[in-house]
């Protein structure tokens, strides 16, 4: 369910869609928003689906050259509003970039969290954990960020450490 908001649906139209989705899927899982520069988010999401299968309650927004930050914020607000009751995690590509700066404005304790530096292991982790109703939005965001951090390795360092340990 990507790019539903690219054509600037009104909140009313989005709400009807959301009710339909709730009726159809009957789930209450946390909504995921991926907001990045260019088509990075779109392609990253496609890559994650190759690994964990089709995902629902995922929205992709992208900032292109010439995009209005205000328009993106309005689209993001529509998404966050209609999915507020389930909680939202917004993934952005880079802390300090426009996607991150826009998203932080929607931080809402317990309801909406922002995680920057999105990578493939992070998406895989969040898709595998978000059905766990014991986790709060904040806890889910923390576990996701940890998965992302832990996945970054310099192969040469691992090899060097293994050789040193074996001596």
């Amino acid at each position, binding site marked *: 369910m990507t790019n539903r908001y690219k054509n600037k649906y009104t909140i009313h139209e989005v709400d009807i869609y959301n009710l339909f989705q709730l009726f159809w899927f009957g789930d209450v899982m946390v909504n995921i928003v991926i907001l990045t520069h260019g088509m990075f988010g779109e392609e990253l999401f496609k890559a994650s689906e190759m690994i964990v299968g089709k995902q629902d309650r995922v929205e992709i927004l992208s900032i292109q050259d010439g995009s209005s930050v205000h328009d993106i914020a309005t689209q993001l607000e529509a998404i966050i509003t209609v999915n507020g009751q389930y909680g939202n995690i917004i993934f952005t590509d880079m802390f*300090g970039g*426009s996607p991150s700066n826009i998203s932080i*404005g929607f931080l809402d304790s317990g309801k909406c969290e922002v995680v920057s530096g999105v990578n493939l292991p992070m998406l895989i982790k969040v898709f595998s954990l978000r059905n766990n109703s014991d986790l709060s939005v904040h806890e889910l965001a923390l576990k996701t960020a940890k998965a992302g951090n832990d996945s970054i390795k310099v192969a040469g360092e691992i090899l060097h450490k293994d050789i040193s340990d074996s001596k």
Partner: protein
Amino acid sequence: MERIIFRVDDRFIHGQVIEGWINHFSIKNIILVNDCIATDLNKAFIYKSTMPRNAKLEVISVDSFLQLDILNEYKKGYLLIIVGSIHDLKLISSNIPKENSYINIGCLATGTRDISVTDNCFINKDELDCLINISEKNSKNIYAHKLPWEKPINLKDIHDTQIKTIKMKG
């Protein structure tokens, strides 16, 4: 590059500004001039939290900026001053030093603007005229300049092209 850099960017502080300008020139002092953000502690905090180590961001209003004695208060190193619109640049233009300053335009979203200067910089005729006016009053060129290592585009050239086009149509 001149020591005091003025930049118009409707995204204020973002990737291009941090990586392209602040980190590239090791800028330690940044001033964001905007009346709304200056009174919104949350927004100001968001932008301050994005600053690289050793870089300090001040968020101030247009009036506060006009009271600043830039050359005396920021004597050493680069200084980056960011405004969000050409209108705000006009408001602060009386406090742009004649020497050691450089004015550039970064991201300006399309919206209803019909003049495409770069792939992420769009302006309309009134804004172009305003920029030329500021340029002439301050005796310095104004450039569309996304990143320091890219070639800047002199807005006067865009203005001249516009005039030629209008004359040809006429």
